[in-house]
Each structure stands twice: as C-alpha cells, then as structure tokens.
C-alpha cells in the first residue's frame, strides 16, 4: 500500500494502473479529490521519492500520474489493487482460535502494549474507533418523497396545462394544493426524525490501556489494533479484543448474540469454527463486562468490529415500503389511469361536437382535477398523525408515519426473548430451605441466629460466596449498587432485602480464599475466617448435581433432592445448590458439606408479556419467539407465556430455502439459537408468505430484523441505539400490552381511511361523471377547473378530515386483521362508491338543468358535504367518545357549509370562482343538496348483525 505522510497525517493511495513498459503509475488518492492545494502538495511529495521523474495530480479525478526512471526502487514492483483492499490488521481473522503469543506477534504488540508513536501511526492508518451511524434522511429526500407519486405528477401536469391555456389563477391554485399536501407530509416526517435524533446517546468513553509499559486512560475512539486494554465489571467493551488474562471475567453478550446469561471469558483458544456465542476467548464491542476483571488485546476497531458487521447488515436489509404506501400507490395509479381514460372519452365526445381546442384542453384539465382527491394526503396524514399522538400518549413514538397504519394489518409478531419478553435481569424466584420454598417477599433473616436458622445461613452463604462489588449510590442515600454477574447480584440483593448487612458480614467473616469454578467443577468455594467463634467457614454454591456430591452421605444418597432439582430446572429456573461447613483450618480437606437448599433464579417476564400474547391470539395475530438462548430455556419461556407450537433451533432451518422455511415456520412458536442473520431470513420468509410482520426487539442483534419487518418495534428505555434508529416504532415503556394497543390504533386508522376513501372517491367520481356526461350530451361545461378545485378542497379536507378522526369501536381487537395485501376499497365498497357517485352526479345534473352551472355548483357541493355523514360508522359501533366525535364532525362539516355559502354570496369569491349572483333558486338548491343524501340513505342502507368467530358483530351494509 502507498501512503502520503504530511503534517502528522497519513493519506492512503492505491494503484489503479501500472504500465511497466511505459513506466507509468496511476494512483487513486481520495484525499486530493476536489482539493487543488493538497494535490500540488502531494505532487511535491511524490517528486521527492527516489526514481520519480514526474508527478501530476488531478484534483478533478482524485488521481495522480507518476513517471519513474528505469530501475526506480520499489515503484517498479507495485501491483494494481482494487479500491476495497484492506489492511492486514482489519481482515477477518480467527483470533479466537490463536494462542495469545501468536496474536501478539501478528499484531506487532506485546503485553506492555504498543509504543505510543506506533499507536498514533495505526490510528492514522485505521481511523478512529467509531462506528458510522445511519445518516438521517435529507430534507430534500423527504420533500421529493412527498412529490414523487402518480397523482402529484398528474396534478402538476394539470397545472402546466392550465398555465399554457393562460389560466394562471387556476394553475397557481392547483400548485398551491400540491404544495400544501407536500408540505404537510414533509413537516410531519421531518419532526419525527428530529425527535428520534434527540434520543441518540453519544458513543465513546474512556478506557484503561497499556502503552509503552504504562497504564493510561485514553478515549475509546483512539484505540487501535494491538492496544492492550484492561476491563472490569460494569465496563462496556470498546472494541473487539482477544482475552489475554481473566479473573472470573464474564461478559453479557445479550445485545449481540441474545444469550441471556453472562458468559465466562478465558484466554485459552477455542476451535476456529466456533459460533460467535461460543468464542469464550473474545470480547466484542458493544457488550458489557458482567463480572471479574481481565486484560485483552484489541483486534478490530470501528467498522471492522462485529458490531459494525451487524450495522452493515442493517443497512443492507432494505426496509420494505409500508403496506399503506403500496396500496395508496396502486390506488393512485388506477385513479390516474381512469382519469386519463375518461379524459380521452370526453375529448373524443367534445371533438364530435365540434368544440374548439381550448375547450378540449380545459375539459381534460377539469377531469384531471376532478378525478384526483387533492385532500387525500391531508386526510391520510391526519388519521396517521392522530394515531401517532394517541400512541405517543401511551409511551410509544412512531418514527415512520405510515407505520401507524401498518400496525393495523399485522398478522405475525416476532418477538426477541431476552430484554423484550423478559427483563434481562436475573431475580431470585424461590429459595428452598429445609424442604420449604420461600418466595423473595417471605425471606426474613435472623441476624442473631446466623448459623442456627437454616434460612439465614443460606442467605449468608449466598451473600458471602458471591464475588460482587457493592457501592453506595451517590444519587440515592442509603441505597446500594451491586456490580457483578447477574446471578450473584440477584442473590446479594435478595440477602440485603431479607435484612442481612453484607458489609458487616464481610467484616465478621473476611474471605481467606476463593476457589473458582473450573471446566470440570461447576461450583465456587469460598473460605472465610470466623472472627466471632474462631475457625474457618467454607461456603459452596453451584451446580446442584456436583454440590450434592460434596455433601454428607445422607444428602448425597437422597434421590428426592436430585428429583426436586430436575423439577425446578424443567420449570425454566436456574438452580444453584448452597452448602456450608466449619473447618479447623483453610487447608483442611473439604467434603461432607451441610446442605442448605436450592436458590432458584429466573429472568422474569416483562409486565403484560403473557397477556399481550393472549390478546394477540384473540386478535388473530400469531406470535413467534426468536432467541439466542438454548432450546430448553426457550421452551420453558414459551410454556410460561402460554404459547403452543413447535420449538425449533436455527440449525433445523439452516438448509431450507426461503419458501421451505416459510412452510416450516407455520407450526413454530419458538426459534432458539438464532443469529441476527437468521432473524432477517425468518422475517423475510414470513413476508414472502404474505404475512404482515411486526418485529419487537431491543438489542443490536435485532436491528437487521427490525428493519426488514413491515413494522419494527424497539422495546424499552434500555433498547440499543441501533435498534431505535432503525425501528418504525419506539416504546419508551416496557409493557408489551402497548403493542396490542398500537395494533388497535392501527386498525382504527385503517377503518377510518376506508370510510374516508369511500367518501373521497364517491364525490370525485360524481364530478367526473357530471363533466363526462355533459361532454357526451353536448351540454355546456358544467363546472370550471377552479370550481372543481374549490369543491375538492372544501369537501376533501373538512368532511374527509372529520371521517379520518372518528373514534374506533371498542371491540376492534376482537376480529382478525384485514387480509394482507387487500385493496383499500374492495369490490363491495367499489359498487357502493359507484352507486353513490351516480346519485351525487344526478343531483348536480338536476341543478345544471334547472339553473345552469351556478346552481350545479351550489347543489353538488352541498350534497357532497351532506354525504359525509352517510359514510360515518353506524351509531352502534361508535365508542363512548361518540359525543365528542359528533361535535367535531358537526363543526367540520358545518364549517364547510358556511364556507361554501360564502363562495355563493361573497362577491370577491364569486368573481374568483365565476359564480353568478345568488337567487332564491340557488339557496333552495343548496338546502336541497344538504337534505337529499340523508333521505337517500334512509331508503337504501341497513344495519346487519353478523355472527363471526362465535360472537355477534354489527356491520353497516349499503
């Protein structure tokens, strides 16, 4: 590799082309692109290289040409390299499988760390130890998104046609309508983006590193491969590192692998093909040290870490377009197609009647404006925004507006187990002593009978045997912060809560020795001097099968105890046996321990997890648990949650293609030992089957699947930054019932959108029918484009908005979701829309016949305003919020009526809209228009009670 060193910086270059025959070397130097001064400087540097005859840098292309003399040292040996060639220290390597001395050699380091100057050079070469974050969408991209759809394009075309005809006011009015719609959508998306940017925490921090044989505190961003770092309980691992020294070192890898228990770390190499969760000789960036302390050598930083690999997977996983966007796009294309077809027919009809070209173009523009529901973006956005506001009130931030509707169509919820369904906090669930099981709230220690009361002895044993760090909390006087492994933290917390004073016990029984767990001995023995009674106390805590073997013969040979252990383990509990004895001195042979009891721990379920799954099932939504845990643990959790279905491991699915995987998942309830890549595959396979998938997770390992799902939900305040960045919905709280609440809100949005669409399309079709009918009949133009725009803006916004903000039915979650991919308006709804459109067009035609275009304008608009109440949900389906909704509806539709009356009577508006002065006939037509739809509804619609899924449901049928 070639590099240019200048002013304490190093800029890389690589060979694009090397022609040995002409002695020309073409280098790509990214740093000089667009920088003339740096290009000149690099030319001067290159001229100073031995053998270089000429150097020319081109800042436009970012390349440099070198001519070199025959026999120039080194230059003649350079080979062409692809731009993606990476440095040796960053290449994927099996560090976990190499002995530590080999790791030091390959990284050019030593136990005393790197030389500081070498560290600086490596920092320039490798760059900072910072992972690139997903850049927020630019404002331009947000704005372009709002405008890049077929209806907007058609409106823009209509505006252009109006402008060509000289109708500047009309063209301007159409463009204003387009601008308002785009502006509303842009503002909402932009605000949302800002809310979530503010949540992002800063990465980095300070680490203890050894350089030049000295212990230094350096920023995590300055770590380089080869640095030796010190880690201890509570630290977040700053970079991928190979363990070189470990004292009870354990890492919590849940964010990366989903493994819920802290994993012990040790310096011995593991097999090269070991999966990530089993590389006990490694520490990975983004994970946390759960216990002990140790030293490690950094092997990968920044973009080369496993964390960055998961982030890259997130970026590669394309977020699917929201279902609402897909259906609206489809609907928009169909409407545009219909509009063009009708415009064609109208133009042909006008031609047959010998109308001039100006009239033909104006007719086409009128149809374009009539066909498109200009208020639809406002209505859809309002429905979504209202849903978002209600969800925000329930502690959920909707990051992508369309997700508020997508939630309503969810058919499968994929939930990560650790941290999503469970709290990721070990808790003592039971302490079995003397054959009796004590719950945590029943634990009471008797300090005066420390070794006479078995319960107190068990608690003291658990406390003294645990290797934790207990500190007083500065921010809360009297409370303690316990650092250490989750299991031992839980035991110590329980002992404190039962009334034992850990500090006092440690003073009375200072530890002499700790015999740690080994590969064969899955228990820990601690020896303590008894300052009160003299002698030595030995406590043992660990795997029940082995601890029972260390106890007195009556316990060793008791089958009931071992059976009880099996029972507890089968219930999904983590079981530890406790025992103790007195020794004459620390070196005495230990055995014949006195058995105390079983400490049973569990990672508890989050609030509402089981109920959320039950409600999901009632709502027709399947739940699938994805976890990095082992099969048995995963199965126990599924039992607790009441999930019925197969428990599969990722290895069972590895060889299946997407279609076969989708079939295999049909009967599954739990998938164990899944990696981030597996989660993405599973989500894609489900989507391929046509399911609408919601993925709920909180860790880094969930992020790619969150992005690939239809709705990604980041759960809890402790969700990783990456999960929150890519999720569509971020839950601040931890109650999973909120997810079902969000699904209910989504279904309300869908129902309201359907009603709004029925209204919008019926009214727009009525205008099209009127214009087309007039063209075919050879009658004069019934409505001008500006009048049609006025009608659309008035009726699409105010009544359309009222329909979009209706409250939902209380039993919204008692029915299954709508069929995925179903059209927003099905065949039945389309027939209703057609019938209603003809009725409204008839009202307009009657006005045209009786009083000309002005009366048509008056009656059609009034009829459309009144038609909105026909589209409301029947009274029986409305919730208790009905009174407020009725008032809001009346206010909005009433405002529309008042504005239209103003258009008929207020002279400046009348002149703008080219409406004649009102007559009694005009006002009578206006009143008739308001009344007729109600009369028609009474004659045609019925309320039908339908038995569905074992319960009666009321539907309004046209």
């Amino acid at each position, binding site marked *: 590799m070639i590099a240019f060193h200048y002013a304490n910086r190093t800029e890389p270059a690589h060979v694009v082309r090397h*022609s040995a025959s002409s002695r*020309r070397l*073409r280098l790509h130097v990214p740093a000089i692109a667009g920088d003339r001064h740096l290009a000149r400087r690099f030319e001067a540097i290159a001229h100073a290289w031995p053998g270089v005859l000429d150097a020319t840098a081109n800042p*436009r*292309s970012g390349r440099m*040409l070198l001519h070199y003399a025959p026999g120039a040292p080194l230059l003649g040996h350079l080979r062409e390299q692809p731009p993606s060639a990476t440095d040796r220290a960053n290449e994927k390597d099996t560090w976990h499988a190499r002995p530590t001395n080999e790791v030091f050699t390959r990284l050019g380091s030593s136990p005393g760390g790197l030389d500081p100057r070498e560290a600086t050079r490596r920092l320039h070469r490798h760059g900072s130890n910072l992972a690139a974050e997903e850049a927020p969408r630019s404002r331009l991209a947000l704005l372009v998104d709002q405008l890049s759809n077929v209806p907007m394009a058609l409106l823009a075309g209509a505006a252009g046609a109006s402008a060509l005809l000289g109708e500047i006011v009309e063209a301007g009015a159409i463009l204003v309508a387009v601008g308002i719609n785009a502006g509303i959508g842009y*503002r909402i998306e932009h605000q949302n983006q800002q809310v979530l940017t503010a949540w992002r925490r800063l990465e980095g921090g300070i680490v203890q590193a050894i350089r030049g044989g000295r212990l230094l505190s350096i920023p995590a961003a300055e770590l380089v491969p080869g640095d030796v770092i010190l880690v201890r309980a509570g630290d977040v691992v700053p970079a991928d590192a190979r363990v070189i020294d470990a004292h009870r070192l354990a890492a919590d890898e849940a964010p990366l692998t989903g493994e819920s228990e802290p994993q012990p770390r040790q310096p011995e190499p593991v097999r090269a093909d070991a999966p990530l969760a089993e590389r006990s000789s490694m520490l990975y960036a983004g994970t946390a040290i759960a216990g002990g302390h140790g030293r490690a050598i950094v092997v990968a930083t920044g973009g080369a870490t496993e964390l960055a690999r998961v982030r890259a997977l997130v970026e590669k996983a394309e977020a699917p377009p929201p279902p609402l966007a897909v259906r609206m796009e489809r609907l928009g294309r169909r409407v545009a197609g219909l509009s063009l077809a009708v415009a064609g027919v109208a133009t042909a009809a006008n031609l047959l009647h010998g109308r001039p070209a100006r009239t033909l173009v104006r007719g086409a523009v009128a149809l374009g404006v009539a066909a498109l529901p200009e208020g639809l973006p406002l209505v859809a956005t309002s429905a979504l925004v209202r849903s978002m506001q209600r969800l925000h009130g329930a502690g959920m931030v909707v990051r992508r507006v369309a997700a508020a509707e997508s939630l309503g169509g969810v058919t499968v919820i994929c939930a990560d187990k650790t941290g999503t369904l469970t709290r990721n906090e070990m808790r003592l669930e039971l302490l079995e002593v003397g054959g009796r099981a004590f719950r945590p709230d029943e634990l009471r220690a008797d300090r005066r009978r420390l070794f006479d009361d078995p319960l107190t002895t068990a608690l003291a044993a658990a406390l003294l045997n645990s290797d934790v760090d207990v500190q007083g909390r500065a921010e809360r006087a009297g409370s303690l912060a316990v650092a250490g492994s989750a299991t031992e933290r839980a035991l110590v917390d329980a002992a404190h809560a039962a009334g034992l004073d850990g500090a006092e016990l440690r003073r009375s029984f200072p530890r002499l020795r700790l015999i740690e767990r080994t590969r064969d001995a899955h228990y820990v023995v601690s020896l303590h001097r008894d300052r009160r009674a003299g002698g030595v106390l030995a406590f043992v805590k660990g795997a029940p099968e082995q601890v029972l073997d260390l106890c007195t013969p009556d316990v060793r040979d008791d089958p009931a105890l071992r059976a009880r252990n099996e029972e507890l383990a089968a219930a999904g509990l983590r079981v530890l046996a406790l025992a103790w004895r007195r020794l004459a001195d620390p070196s005495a042979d230990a055995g014949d321990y006195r058995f105390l009891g079983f400490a049973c721990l569990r990672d508890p379920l989050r609030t509402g997890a089981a109920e959320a799954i039950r409600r999901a099932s009632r709502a027709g939504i399947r739940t699938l648990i994805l976890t990095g845990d082992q099969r048995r643990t995963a199965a126990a959790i599924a039992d607790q949650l009441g999930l019925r279905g197969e428990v599969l491991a990722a290895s069972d699915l590895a060889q299946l293609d997407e279609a076969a995987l989708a079939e295999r998942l049909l009967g599954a309830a739990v998938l164990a030992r899944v990696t981030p890549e597996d989660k993405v595959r599973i989500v894609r396979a489900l989507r391929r089957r046509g399911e609408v998938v919601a993925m709920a997770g909180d860790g880094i390992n969930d992020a790619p699947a969150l992005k690939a799902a239809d709705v990604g939900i980041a759960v809890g305040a402790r969700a990783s930054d990456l999960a929150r960045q890519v999720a569509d919905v971020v839950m601040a709280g931890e109650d999973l019932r909120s997810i079902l609440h969000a699904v209910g809100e989504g279904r309300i949005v869908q129902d309201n959108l359907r009603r709004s669409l029925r209204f919008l399309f019926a009214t727009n079709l009525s205008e099209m029918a009127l214009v087309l009918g007039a063209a075919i009949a050879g009658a004069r133009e019934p409505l001008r484009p500006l009048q049609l725009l006025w009608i659309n803006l008035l009726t699409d916004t105010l009544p359309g908005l009222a329909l979009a903000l209706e409250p939902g039915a209380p039993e919204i979650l008692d029915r299954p979701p709508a069929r995925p991919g179903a059209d927003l308006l099905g065949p039945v709804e389309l027939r209703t829309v057609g019938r209603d459109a003809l009725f409204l067009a008839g009202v307009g035609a009657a006005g045209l016949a009786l009083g000309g275009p002005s009366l048509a304008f008056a009656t059609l608009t009034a009829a459309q305003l009144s038609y909105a109440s026909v589209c409301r949900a029947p009274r029986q389906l409305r919730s208790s919020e009905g009174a407020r909704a009725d008032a809001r509806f009346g206010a909005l539709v009433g405002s529309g009526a008042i504005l239209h009356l103003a258009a008929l009577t207020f002279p400046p508006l009348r*002149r703008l809209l080219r409406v004649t002065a009102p007559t009694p006939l005009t006002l009578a037509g206006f009143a008739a228009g308001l009344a007729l739809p109600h009369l028609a509804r009474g004659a045609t619609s019925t309320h039908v009670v339908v038995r569905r899924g074992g319960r009666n449901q009321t539907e309004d049928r046209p």
Partner: protein
Amino acid sequence: MNFHLPSFLLGYGAGASSVLLARQLRPVLLEVATFAYRFADAIAARAAIRQEDLEDILAEARSRARGARNHHAAHGDGKGAH
C-alpha cells in the same frame, strides 16, 4: 388605482408565506444547491477519469510499439522500423 381584494390577499399571502417559510425553505434550498454541485463535480470527475484512461491506453500502446521497434533494432533481426 382601484383596490382589488383578491389581488391584495394574494400578495399579502405570498409575502407572509415567504417570511414564514423562509426558515424551513433555507435548508432545503441549501441541500438542492449542494446536490447540484455534487452532481456537477461527479460529472467532471467521470470525464477526467475517462480522459486519463484514454491517455494511459495511448501511452501504453506507444511504448509497446516503440519499445518493440527498438528491441528489434537492437537485436538486428531485420524487423526493425524502416
């Protein structure tokens, strides 16, 4: 001059909108300009790269042709340039 209400309202609305929207529009216009410059730079870079590629091809062809001629002349195999 007669007072024309619609014209007055249109003008007032345009003025008020531009003031209110200026803060929102400035970043968008900045991004549009940035995008335009980047696009222009990318086009210029592509053109420069293509030109350099052509130069390299011609230089290599020249050196092969003249290098071959000189080699033949030096070894006197009767195939040198005429």
